[in-house]
């Protein structure tokens, strides 16, 4: 009898243990907003803005949202982790379980295609018409985020990918008077720096090579031919692309030893060990902000910037945007959030803190100084081209294939195989 009892109690214990595991999951779910929070309805806003600057920007937008919508409370469902790798994995499971957040952050453009194809997102074109957003966003931006004539997200900010960061002191030492304007000048300048024994071009982990590639493609092909590469049936085997890839190969020959990520690579420029670095304009905050979040360097003397070679007059952009998932528990609340995110007031509160510029053309220019003033000026006048590495021009599988081709190239140095890899990636994924 005693043995029986022992067996039953152990079995019960293990079943209970299982239930406890299940309960753990449910416990997490209760963190999600309940339908009512003291009479006010919650709006669950899902993002990966938890770092310095970006979290402050989100709080600033939240304040405006809660002032304008006294009936709603803002529920911050941010998941830490740069570029949202972890956030996207969690989001995927939430969407599959049909419990989407009320609105979630995503890179504007083709990166959202997976969600659109799976039927997770609502068409926001009516919201654009209601708020006349097509008049305040640049026409090319609206065109580049439209999928089959419909728009699925509201861009909150704009970052620039094609920025050449350089150390004026190192350039002077190498006898370079101004930032290179063309790819040919750039390659010649890289040679001059190399002769002085400094690192001509600093580089980080493999994704920063893809980031460099998009600037070289744009710099060689020009904005129109670059944008055409992402249309269905585009020819990635053309001689123009070959030229661009040969340029990429020449530039990569001058790259220093790869660093852990983009920050150590940018730091080599700030510290005067390297001359050039091509990185998005989030690097400005890293160079400029006081120690803790940044390096505390002086702009124009310790570091300086220019459009990456051959791309002057084109803004290679990327953007964070908010969406409206189908089946959102608080759809009206989500729409109220999107209205704040689209508004001039909301964007002007968010962007100076985040270190980016508003997607709207009518921003208050006095809020944006130093690099951001340059960026704002270029944004309203330049042609636009969508970033590859940051989700505008290519969807996720396509980007994975491009990263694979670039990674294999770094090992093999085989330009022909790189071009074939890129061409195959385009045939398999362009739509």
């Amino acid at each position, binding site marked *: 009898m005693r*043995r*029986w009892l*022992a*067996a*039953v109690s*152990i*079995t019960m214990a*293990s*079943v209970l243990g*299982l239930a406890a595991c299940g309960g753990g999951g449910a416990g997490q779910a209760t963190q999600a907003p309940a339908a009512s929070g003291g009479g006010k309805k919650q709006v669950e806003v899902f993002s990966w803005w938890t770092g310095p600057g970006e979290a402050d920007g989100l709080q600033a937008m939240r304040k405006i949202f809660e002032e304008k919508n006294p009936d709603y409370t803002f529920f911050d469902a941010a998941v830490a982790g740069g570029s949202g790798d972890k956030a996207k*994995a969690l989001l*995927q499971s939430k969407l599959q379980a049909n419990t989407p957040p009320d609105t979630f952050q995503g890179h504007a453009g083709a990166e959202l295609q*997976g969600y659109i*194809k*799976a039927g997770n997102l609502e068409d926001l074109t009516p919201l654009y018409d209601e708020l006349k957003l097509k008049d305040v966003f640049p026409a090319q931006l609206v065109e580049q985020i439209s999928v089959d004539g419909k728009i699925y997200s509201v861009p909150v900010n704009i970052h620039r990918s094609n920025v050449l960061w350089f150390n004026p002191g190192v350039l002077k030492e190498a006898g370079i008077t101004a930032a290179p304007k063309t790819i040919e000048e750039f390659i010649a300048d890289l040679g001059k720096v190399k002769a002085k024994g400094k690192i001509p071009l600093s580089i980080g*982990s*493999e994704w920063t090579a893809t980031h460099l590639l998009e600037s070289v493609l744009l710099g060689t092909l020009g904005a129109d031919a670059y944008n055409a590469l992402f249309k269905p049936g585009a020819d990635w085997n053309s001689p123009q692309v070959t030229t661009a890839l040969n340029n990429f190969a020449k530039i990569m020959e001058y790259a220093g*030893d*790869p*660093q*852990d990520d983009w920050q150590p690579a940018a730091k*080599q420029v700030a510290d005067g*060990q390297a001359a050039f670095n091509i990185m998005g304009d989030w690097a400005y905050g890293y160079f400029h902000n006081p120690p803790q979040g940044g390096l505390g360097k002086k702009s124009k003397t310790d570091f300086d910037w220019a459009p990456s070679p051959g791309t002057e007059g084109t803004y290679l952009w990327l953007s964070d945007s908010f969406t409206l998932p189908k089946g959102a528990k608080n759809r009206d609340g989500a729409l109220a959030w999107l209205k704040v995110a689209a508004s001039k007031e909301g964007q002007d509160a968010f962007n100076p803190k985040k270190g980016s510029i508003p997607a709207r053309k009518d921003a208050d220019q006095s809020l944006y100084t130093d690099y951001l003033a340059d960026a704002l000026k270029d944004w309203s006048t330049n042609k636009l081209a969508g970033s590859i590495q940051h989700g505008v021009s290519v969807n*996720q*599988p396509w*980007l*994975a*294939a491009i*990263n*694979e081709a670039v*990674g*294999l190239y*770094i*090992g093999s140095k085989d330009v022909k*195989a790189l071009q074939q890899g890129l061409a195959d990636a385009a045939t398999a994924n362009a739509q």
Partner: protein
Amino acid sequence: MRRARTWLPGLLLVTPSIILIGVFVYGMLGWNFRVAMTDQHDAVSEGRFVGLQNFVDIWDLPRWHLSVNHAIVFTVVFVLGALVLGWLLAFLMEKGIRGEGTFRAIYLFPMAISFVATGIVWRWLMNSGTGERAVGLNRLFEWFGLPQWQWFRDQDWGMAAMALPAIWQMSGYVMALFLAGFRGVPEELREAARVDGCTEWGVYRHVVLPLLRPVTLSALIILGHISLKVFDLIVAVSGKQIITDVPAVFMWVAVFDSNDPAKGATIASYIVLSVAIFVIPYLIWSVRKEKRS
């Protein structure tokens, strides 16, 4: 009723784990093989049965060849390194040094750390910066006037460097296995060899080592299967870069970045099969041994 009393409690006891393993190990394994044999190459399509097509097609991908080569280099360096180092440590320990208990604990401690934590520390130790930017091991080598290395960023030997943290972590465990094995060799056998004029080295070579074959085999199997499915260490040290790509990382990218479940499942199947090559002979061997005894 009386008969049930003898077997029912035992059955009740193991039922939860049988159900759990059945669903979460074998059920999922079967599902994985099923997905691997469909053409479900994106998140939304249904997927038709295509047999072993995916298993053949994957050999056309340059990246697959690269990641398989990497896994082989990693496995050879890691398994041999951990075996040799573990054996050496056990050998020194067995010679009866002072404070053996302390040393044993020190060598075993790395096992208590997860591969992720090991990877994060070794990412810094194996930083590829040279000259004035050298940190970690390169800085140490600079002090001693030794050449500096690219470590895991080296195009040819990167995966061999990647095996160093794994060797560091697992050689203590191998040492413990061997030490137990050494202690299991009866002193009489050694003495008999010595009386017959065998040198101390010869005692180990001809008496102890042959008796340790079962220990060596189990160490080989444990290290081998850890090595073939290595994922966390690689991701912690280098992320999902091609230069340190292994099948498990490739699988992760195929599923979560390329949204290609069939490709990911195919890679997962190959990982399971390669581990099975190690484990199944071991199972057969141990079942036979049980029968014999």
